[in-house]
């Protein structure tokens, strides 16, 4: 077991830290520490320009193989990249769904032509993606999707009709990957396809949904005979591909996410020292608990990324979402409790929230999206502990 990074990796750390220090300046100074979860509606244009700046420096898609425009970085170097990015206050990445989800899935399942067509736009930060999984009747029960895909002989293409919901950043996106039913007779996870759909066409309508924060980061998306430019894999393979994509979600970027969490915890600690909350025994215990939880999340992630030689990779990975989501939601509550009565007072009408207020509200979604806490517990019990599967209606 070894925790420290070797010298080559530390040199790489200096390189990326230097690049970020030089480039996160000038016009990009204002977006430092902005646009993360809860703040994603802010600075859209600036963040798109920043994405392209990153691309020019060769700092997008760093974990992709070099043949697809990535850097082919080792796990260690990816960890370092994400850590330094968050430490420098790098803004929320507008391209993260393309880079982290769509791209790896296309690399894994796409044809040579599809790779050629879609990967450069993601790599260059010019084309943004969103995820079209959830529907009004398919939330936790994703296999219940009703959106239809029909092959239109006239247009020589698959056409999509139906409704998606909670689609994050659909209003900013150029492309959407959509799970839809190719076989109208099929049930559950059979008969599904995985489609790549251009958002700029008459058959696609995006309607924003206002969140409890008063802002709007996710949307309803309506498809009416919308043309799918491509299907990934074969009709009927949609479930397999869709699930593989979710596997990419638990990647190395979690360590960067943790660095962002650290920034939040630091802000709470500084506030507690200023306003006297640091003297309250309950707050002391909870700040300490938050600190421990975050540090251990880091070592858990390092174990998860170090691979399976200890035989428990799967279990370390299985608990990861439940752990960070629950931790982060508690942090939001802690922030509010450290704020005390001041926590009620908004920055400005009608509904401008401070960073910590926004943390409190937004972290309520962490235990819902990407598999709710209850669904995570089912998965841990069934896959990790071999307990019986849930009965289905």
């Amino acid at each position, binding site marked *: 077991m070894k925790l420290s990074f070797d010298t080559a990796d530390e040199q790489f750390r200096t390189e990326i830290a230097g690049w970020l220090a030089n480039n996160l300046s000038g016009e990009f100074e204002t977006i430092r520490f902005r646009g993360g979860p809860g703040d994603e509606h802010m600075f859209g244009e600036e963040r798109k320009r920043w994405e392209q700046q990153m691309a020019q420096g060769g700092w997008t898609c760093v974990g992709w193989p070099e043949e697809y425009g990535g850097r082919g970085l080792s796990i260690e170097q990816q960890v370092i990249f994400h850590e330094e990015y968050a430490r420098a206050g790098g803004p929320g990445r507008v391209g993260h769904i393309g880079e982290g989800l769509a791209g790896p899935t296309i690399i894994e399942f796409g044809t040579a032509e599809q790779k050629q067509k879609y990967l450069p736009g993601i790599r260059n930060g010019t084309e943004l993606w969103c995820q079209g999984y959830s529907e009004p009747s398919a939330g936790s029960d994703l296999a219940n999707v009703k959106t239809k895909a029909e092959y239109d002989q006239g247009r020589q293409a698959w056409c999509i009709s139906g409704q998606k919901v909670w689609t994050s950043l659909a209003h900013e996106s150029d492309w959407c990957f959509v799970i839809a039913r190719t076989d109208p007779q099929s049930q559950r996870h059979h008969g599904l396809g995985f489609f790549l759909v251009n958002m700029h066409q008459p058959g696609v309508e995006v309607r924003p949904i206002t969140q409890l924060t008063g802002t709007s980061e996710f949307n309803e998306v309506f498809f009416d005979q919308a043309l799918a430019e491509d299907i990934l894999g074969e009709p009927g393979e949609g479930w397999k591909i869709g699930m593989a994509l979710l596997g990419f979600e638990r990647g190395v970027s979690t360590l960067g996410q943790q660095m962002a969490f650290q920034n939040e915890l630091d802000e709470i600690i500084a506030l507690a020292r200023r306003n006297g909350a640091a003297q309250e025994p309950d707050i002391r215990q909870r700040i300490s608990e938050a600190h421990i939880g975050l540090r251990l999340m880091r070592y858990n992630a390092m174990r998860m990324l*170090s691979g399976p030689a200890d035989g428990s990779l799967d279990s370390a990975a299985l608990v990861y979402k439940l752990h960070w989501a629950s931790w982060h939601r508690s942090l939001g509550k802690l922030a509010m409790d450290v704020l005390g009565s001041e926590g009620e007072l908004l920055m400005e009408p009608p509904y401008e929230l401070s960073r910590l207020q926004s943390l409190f509200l937004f972290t309520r979604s962490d235990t819902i999206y990407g598999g709710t806490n209850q669904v995570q517990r089912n998965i841990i019990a069934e896959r990790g502990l071999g307990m019986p599967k849930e009965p289905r209606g």
Partner: protein
Amino acid sequence: MDFKFTEEQVMIRDAADAFLLAEADSAAVRTAMASELGYDPAFWRALCDQMYWHVAHIPEQYGGLGLGYVELCIVMQAMGKRLACAPFFSTVALAANGLLLAGNEAQREQWLPRIAEGQTATLAFHGGGRAWDATAVSGEFTGSGDTYTLNGDYCYVVDGHSADLLLIAARNSQDQHELALFMLDADTAGIERQWQATMDQTRKQASLSLSNVTVAGNARLAGCQADGSTLDTLLDLACIALAAEQCGGTDAILRQAVAYTQEREQFGRTIASFQAIKHKAADIALKSEVAMSAVFYAACVADEYLAGSAGDGELAAQLPEAAAMAKAYCSDAYFFAAGNAMQMYGGVGFTWEYDAHLYFKRAKSSEVLLGNGAWHRERIATGLLGPANGGET
């Protein structure tokens, strides 16, 4: 960075599990715990003569195997899984660590080979009260140079009634700020030892009364800092070993309880199929995984610390924090696991016959020993927020 067991460490773990499966089953544990001695001498001899665990992390020049703290924690974890009864924690994690930290060359050569031969040892430092650091020492010494005289009462001495050798912490009666450690034979004149009946019968405790115990000058460990910092470091190292044991117990009681729920049927199905049971198990599994990360992070830090100038200084400096995090997290995780497991068993969990209560009681006793979660969180809070009394750091 490679945060997983090496092949050799996996072998040590598997060998440990196999040995204890044969030698420390429930019947063996119950026989041992019913005796005042608290362990089966034949088991202790096997543990020393066949497995060499008692000298795993002792350097080769003193008769040890020269392995690291990670290996020691692997063994502690394995023993925790089975509730194995042996004077192992006291001899190795308390006394041998004390000699490694504070003994000079001659003192290590004098005492460590005796441990290597299979003699048992422990640390006596606690004079009562709620603190679990060097401030808890109330026993006193007088004299200097050639001879010292020790006086005082010591409580919570693990295996204190049976140990062959004693490591004693005491303050200078003339100057309470001067703390020293003495190593002596347990049969030295003036030492009265009283076994104490304990709720957790799998770990024995004694109280010691020292009246005018006279020892030679070389009994005083030469490397012990007078300000108590050496003793605090020793307690940190012991916390990490104890946390490893707690981590093993957490995992074991989870697996046993889940196995029970897979067999027991109510309402025409196994109780494991009830979501309330699955989710409890999943919550324990989460804590068990995080506990594992906490322990082996802390064990890596301990290795760097014990490596002295050859170690990674940045990691070594994290020893107090790593120990506090591991002990806080694992104490609470184990109790959470054992308490919830007992609920999963229903009525049989409340019987003497089932082992659930043995884990439950061990979870509580090891939580309290060396300071509970709240104690260690407050240590961390002091680092983050300054002292609780309103003073500035």
